[in-house]
């Protein structure tokens, strides 16, 4: 027995319920990182054997065979073969198969069994198989495969203890043998899988019809699309209205901390730095956590229920017209939360040109970092009233239009790119449609917690650092008492912004915006904290002024045309260092990120300009 903690890999087909099983086994004890050199997510976690000895579990990307088509499938192959850099070969495998889809999932299982590692098969989602009218004999399956087979229902934590015990047993009793090949051809492999599946199926009622009835509506050429757009619309309305009480509570919380510090700490440099720099800046961003979580909540819900693939199916026709595939729908939809995971999710797109195009347009999807900017400006400048006599809120409608402009812009850009710089063959689109299932609360909570943590860590590091630097830039040198300029105008930051103002003035941007644009390069939401910081500095120790809502202040200083131009700018501007960095990593060089930054800034400038000039012509200046 070695002293090292045994590592056990969960491996199986897509949609076998691997991640749910992984969550059920590890709980919240998970660590997400990347495999070195590639950008495939490595999900690892801790669990323990019955006697308390620890084991390390890894959740490998789902795949159909050991012959990979995409990058993440290659990682699965390399890990189980012990060829993945920075990852030792697993001491045992848990092959996860969908009990309701044995014919297909046993093909990959047979391939993995031929590797002769200690192995246990988890006959997962047995409840769904029973719902579908299948009765299975796990013992018979175990005899056919020659390894233990444990029936599991991850969501109800059924079979987990048995599974762990079986893994322990498999490791203890393992006799190494030479690894072989499962079968010589795909056809013979399938035939063998089918024979074994037939043997294990005791009783098979005809496939239940209700999934098909649901799909007849959801995938209907017209009704399906109407439903998809309705869902998207509800999602974005909810992001706005549900989050408000939480955001207000967070905002007043930050405000009272600021006042408490001002009241208890004597006035000095450090207090100003904390109150005007750190708290004003970071607080202004953390307030948007509720909205980001609601957006992620919807995306996770759609993914877990099986709807997301249906949406990809519906969108494939449209995306195919601009040279993309429905495969890109999920990365692009994820980009609504954040372009970074969205761009990382493009690894599932096998076609290189298709993938590159999807990466290049991903920043046009309205990410959650734009939400602080949009929310601030919309609540300050767009009245909170209903459109006509309908229950549709005007603010939500404007937000919807901003999202829509990003999408339409992205489609047009894709069309142009696919005919120029990323010219190539029509992309393929082959996907399995998962069955519908109730999303598991546990899985959603774990995923939401991971997203919240990533966001807060960003707020605590990049954003905190940027706001502090900005505060210093805007606070020094101190404006002399007899000078007519404000502190912000007089500072180093104010002077840099004055230079930038010359360039952005024609599109209606004022000094405030010029000040915000520089630090917003780090992350878009910093634009808000930058304005909050500048505002707090000008307010000085005037408590009344400091606790004024930032929106109210802007309302007094900006015209509606400027506000609209600012919104249009943020639909396109590539203001996020992380996105540029991830694009560099995903495209292996500086060529494409530079191209992306260039075309997006050009678009942003033109869009803001057109918006401003149009608004001014309409008398909104």
């Amino acid at each position, binding site marked *: 027995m070695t002293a090292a903690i045994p590592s056990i890999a969960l491996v199986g087909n897509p949609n076998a319920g691997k991640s749910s099983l992984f969550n059920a086994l590890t709980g919240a004890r998970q660590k997400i990182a990347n495999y070195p050199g590639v950008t495939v997510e490595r999900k690892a976690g801790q669990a323990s054997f019955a006697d308390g000895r620890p084991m390390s579990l890894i959740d490998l990307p789902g795949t159909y065979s050991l012959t990979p088509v995409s990058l993440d499938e290659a990682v699965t192959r390399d890990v189980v073969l012990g060829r993945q850099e920075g990852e030792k070969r697993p001491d045992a495998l848990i092959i996860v198969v969908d009990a309701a889809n044995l014919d297909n999932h046993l093909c990959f299982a047979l391939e993995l069994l031929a590797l002769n590692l200690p192995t246990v098969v988890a006959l997962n989602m047995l409840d769904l198989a029973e719902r579908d009218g299948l009765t299975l004999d796990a013992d018979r399956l175990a005899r056919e495969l020659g390894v233990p087979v444990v029936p599991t229902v991850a969501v109800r934590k059924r079979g987990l203890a048995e599974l762990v015990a079986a893994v322990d047993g498999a490791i203890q009793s393992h006799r190494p043998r030479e690894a072989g090949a499962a079968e010589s051809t795909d056809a013979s492999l399938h035939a063998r899988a089918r024979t074994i599946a037939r043997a294990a199926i005791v009783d098979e009622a005809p*496939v239940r019809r209700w999934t098909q009835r649901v*799909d007849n509506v959801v995938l209907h050429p017209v009704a399906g699309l109407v439903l998809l757009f309705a869902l998207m619309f509800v999602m974005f309305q909810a992001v706005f209205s549900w989050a408000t009480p939480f955001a207000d509570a967070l905002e007043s919380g930050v405000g009272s901390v600021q006042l408490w510090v001002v009241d208890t700490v004597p006035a000095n440099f450090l207090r100003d730095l904390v109150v005007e720099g750190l708290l004003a800046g970071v607080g202004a961003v953390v307030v948007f956590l509720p909205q980001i979580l609601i957006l992620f909540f919807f995306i996770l819900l759609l993914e877990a229920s099986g709807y997301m693939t249906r949406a990809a199916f519906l969108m494939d*026709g449209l995306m195919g017209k601009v040279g993309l595939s429905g495969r890109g729908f999920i990365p692009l939809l994820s980009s609504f939360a954040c372009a970074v995971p969205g761009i990382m999710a493009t690894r599932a797109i096998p076609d290189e040109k298709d993938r590159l195009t999807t990466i290049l347009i991903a920043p046009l999807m309205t990410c959650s970092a734009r939400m602080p900017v949009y929310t601030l400006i919309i609540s300050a400048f767009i009245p909170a009233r209903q459109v006509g006599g309908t229950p549709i809120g005007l603010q939500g409608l404007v937000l919807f239009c901003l999202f829509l402009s990003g999408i339409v812009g992205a489609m047009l850009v894709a069309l142009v790119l696919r005919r120029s710089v990323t010219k190539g063959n029509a992309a*393929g689109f*082959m996907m*399995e*449609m998962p069955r519908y299932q109730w999303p598991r609360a546990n899985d959603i909570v774990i995923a939401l917690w991971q997203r919240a943590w990533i966001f807060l860590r960003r707020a605590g590091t990049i954003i905190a650092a940027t706001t502090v630097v900005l505060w210093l830039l805007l606070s020094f040198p101190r404006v002399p008492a007899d000078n007519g300029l404000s502190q912000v105008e007089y500072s180093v930051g104010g002077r840099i912004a004055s230079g930038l103002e010359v360039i952005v003035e024609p599109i209606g941007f004022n000094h405030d915006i010029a000040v915000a644009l520089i630090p917003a390069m780090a992350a878009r939401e910093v634009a808000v904290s930058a304005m909050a910081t500048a505002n707090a500095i000008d307010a000085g120790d005037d408590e009344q002024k400091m606790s004024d809502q930032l929106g109210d202040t802007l309302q007094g200083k900006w015209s509606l045309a400027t506000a609209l131009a600012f919104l249009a700018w943020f639909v396109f501007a590539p203001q996020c260092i992380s996105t540029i960095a991830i694009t560099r990593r995903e495209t292996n060089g500086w060529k494409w990120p530079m191209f992306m930054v260039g075309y997006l800034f050009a678009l942003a400038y033109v869009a803001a300009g057109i918006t401003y000039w149009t608004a001014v012509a309409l008398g909104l200046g």
Partner: protein
Amino acid sequence: MTVLLDKTPLGARVRIARIDWTAMSEAEGRRLREFGLMEGCEVTPLHRGSIFSRDPLALTVGRMKVIIRARQAAAIELEPAA
């Protein structure tokens, strides 16, 4: 007259008679086989695109439902199911 999978009416069970593997890339062909789409298997085409386009095609293979593009379906020759 041969019937191809991209033209066949929806909802009727059909058997795959022949697949022209040369009409697609190596990887596409492999993924088709991994889905279980090969000579002799029975499938039911169910949905075809949306109002935007008659592409892609969703079909059942065994207990699985998969999506392929019309271009790949056009390489699949059919015969009536047994």
